[in-house]
């Protein structure tokens, strides 16, 4: 018995992590799908089930409404709307999953961008009866814009189209025709019925013509290890550690998260913005020094030389440096009711650095349904996506968002209300 448990714990410690987001319009069965994944992976507890059974009965529903599981706050239930992203968790022996559940209609772009910003994968739901619609394209475009490398297109409600292969193939062809324009390297298609569980966790007996894996098989096996950037070494300094006690009298450690590439003791590094070079003396953790640090580890680095480095600086390799500039082109998604002010001044946060910026120009707005540029439309408001040029008060050291999702992303903050107004991806 004990041996078996220890074995289990070991397996648990080897588990991998996949973060995904789900996208679909209101009646595509998204809540049912998430409910199904939670239920079939035994992640719903008896008291949660009892609570939604009770609520379903009280609301006069003749079935257990799994969507109530993802329906959080009273403020939302009262208004019948969803305020924003909710996070769900489930695990199989292979992986732990974090689901950013982003329902809602009006606020959709804002919510999906938020959920997608940390996701490895997006599930796009299509109602088999309706096929590819405007929203399908919008969701796919946002996933592509946020550089999500894996999309799983679930053609749902196959039970309502007699599990027809032709219907599925038609939708797949339609999606492929439009997705050629997207920048997503891995797109998979699965015909499912979330309600009946076809191809969600168990292989469907109703669709023998489908040879691929189930959704759960895809989620468990999609290869994400190489999605992070292990080439361009980037270490934004978060915090300087100076114990100032007898044991560590002159200790000066630079704490941060490795955001790209790898670092080893002995590596020559440059500190930005000063340009001073030094060598890595040690990479420290409480569990002992490391031979190598890589994303997304949080470590503390010490250097051979005593050079002046503080929060907001970045350690990189001499032969592979990021762009350093004050004039930056961004694709932005606006997240606030207050519109973007042309020539407005804002606070900008980029890695561990903070600066101020001025919006020099709105280049264009994007029609998120057709992906067309609208050159003569310069007004950017809530849920809009557009391209802008900013100038910052001090230089940022950055990569394109395509190259590195951390060193290529910023948030824009209102100087007066302190609210987060926009998400920006550096071009």
């Amino acid at each position, binding site marked *: 018995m004990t041996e078996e448990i220890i074995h289990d714990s070991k397996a648990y410690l080897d588990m991998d992590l996949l973060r995904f987001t789900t996208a679909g319009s209101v009646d595509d069965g998204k809540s049912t799908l998430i409910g199904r994944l939670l239920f079939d992976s035994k992640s719903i507890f008896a008291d949660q089930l009892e609570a939604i059974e009770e609520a379903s009965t009280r609301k006069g529903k003749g079935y257990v409404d799994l969507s109530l599981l993802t329906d959080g706050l009273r403020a939302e239930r009262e208004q019948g709307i969803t305020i924003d992203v909710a996070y769900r*968790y489930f695990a199989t022996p292979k992986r732990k999953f974090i689901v950013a559940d982003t329902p809602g209609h009006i606020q959709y772009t804002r919510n999906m961008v938020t959920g997608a910003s940390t996701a490895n994968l997006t599930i796009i739901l299509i109602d088999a009866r309706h096929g590819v619609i405007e929203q399908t394209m919008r969701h796919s475009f946002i996933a592509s814009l946020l550089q999500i490398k894996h999309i799983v297109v679930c053609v749902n409600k196959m039970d309502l189209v007699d599990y027809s292969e032709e219907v599925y193939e038609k939708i797949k062809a339609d999606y492929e025709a439009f997705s050629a324009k997207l920048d997503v390297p891995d797109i998979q298609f699965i015909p499912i019925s979330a309600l009946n569980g076809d191809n969600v966790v168990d292989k469907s007996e109703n669709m023998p013509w489908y040879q691929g894996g189930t959704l759960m098989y895809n989620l468990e096996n999609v290869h994400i290890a190489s999605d992070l950037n292990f080439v361009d070494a980037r270490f934004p300094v978060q915090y300087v550690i100076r114990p100032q006690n007898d044991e560590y009298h002159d200790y000066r450690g630079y704490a941060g998260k490795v955001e790209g590439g790898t670092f080893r003791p002995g590596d020559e590094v440059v500190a930005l913005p000063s340009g001073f070079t030094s060598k890595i003396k040690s990479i420290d953790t409480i569990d002992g020094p490391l031979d190598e640090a890589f994303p997304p580890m949080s470590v503390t680095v010490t250097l051979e030389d005593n050079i002046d480095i503080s929060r907001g600086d970045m350690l990189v390799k001499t032969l592979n440096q990021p762009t350093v500039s004050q004039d930056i082109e961004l694709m932005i998604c606006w997240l606030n009711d207050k519109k973007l002010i042309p020539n407005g001044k804002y606070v900008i946060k980029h890695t561990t650095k903070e600066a101020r910026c001025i919006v020099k120009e709105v280049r264009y707005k994007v029609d998120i349904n057709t992906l067309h540029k609208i050159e003569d439309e310069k007004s950017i408001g809530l849920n809009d996506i557009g391209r802008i040029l900013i100038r910052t008060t001090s230089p940022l050291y950055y990569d394109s968002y395509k190259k590195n999702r951390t060193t290529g992303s910023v948030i824009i903050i209102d100087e007066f209300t302190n609210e987060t107004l926009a998400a920006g991806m550096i071009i």
Partner: protein
Amino acid sequence: MAYNLSHLKQLEAEAIHIMREVAAQFERPALLFSGGKDSICLVRLAQKAFFPAKIPFPLVHVDTGHNFVETIAFRDKLAAQVGANLIVRNVQDSINRGTAQDEKGPNPSRNGLQTITLLETIEEFKFDACFGGARRDEEKARAKERFFSHRDEFGQWDPKNQRPELWNLYNGKKQVGEHFRVFPISNWTEMDVWQYLDAEKLEIPSIYYTHQREVVFRDNNWLAKSDFITLMGDEKYETRTVRFRTVGDMTCTGAVESNADTIERVIQEVASARNTERGTRADDKRTEAAMEDRKKQGYF
């Protein structure tokens, strides 16, 4: 590719990153420490985040006076072990001052009163960021909580007015008098916490393990015998072999019957559990939105 971090290591790296962000962005952070397993994880993560320096903020405990003696002893021992500054404030003092008043009834809970004392403590020390061990898997109101949760000058949470949180960029900007609650282990599940305690070989209060205790069955829960509970009707205490899944007030924390005497056995139990750990918390059952309402008032 050999560059692979296990999910628990990724969650640890995320939590350490958040703790360092707080230490860098705020002037007077504090770690709200209950003696429970989640806050024990937080203390360990804080040690890791600032090693080889000591934890650069105090541990703060709001003591309802209804705590298990084992928890209080454990709290003092841990604070001494890690060399942290421990600040304790008592709900009883708020009652004596007249800013709080005990509930009436057979098991009056001081759970709600904690919020009053907590906000008074935040004001007293001018804390601008308080770490909490809340997790999003615990309760539906928490599923939408941010890592950096903004509170107004009354300490209130406005679910409709939370800042969007993207990538790992955390906006801790605030007006004078406002503060933040920060939840570094938001993305952890109960199982992750237990596995982490096991992997890190961390000590936890003895009430998490099986023991004999006098308990009374009330509202589907076994409540521990204490001075704060009045027996009703034909209720009577009986001795059972139990353990606790969470550490809260004696008046509202239910025990489960269990023989689990090691972390491995507790993990086994968690893995086959049919109820969430908050299912043993009477304070969450008062109304369907009990947690949401308390959070709005400034609860943990």
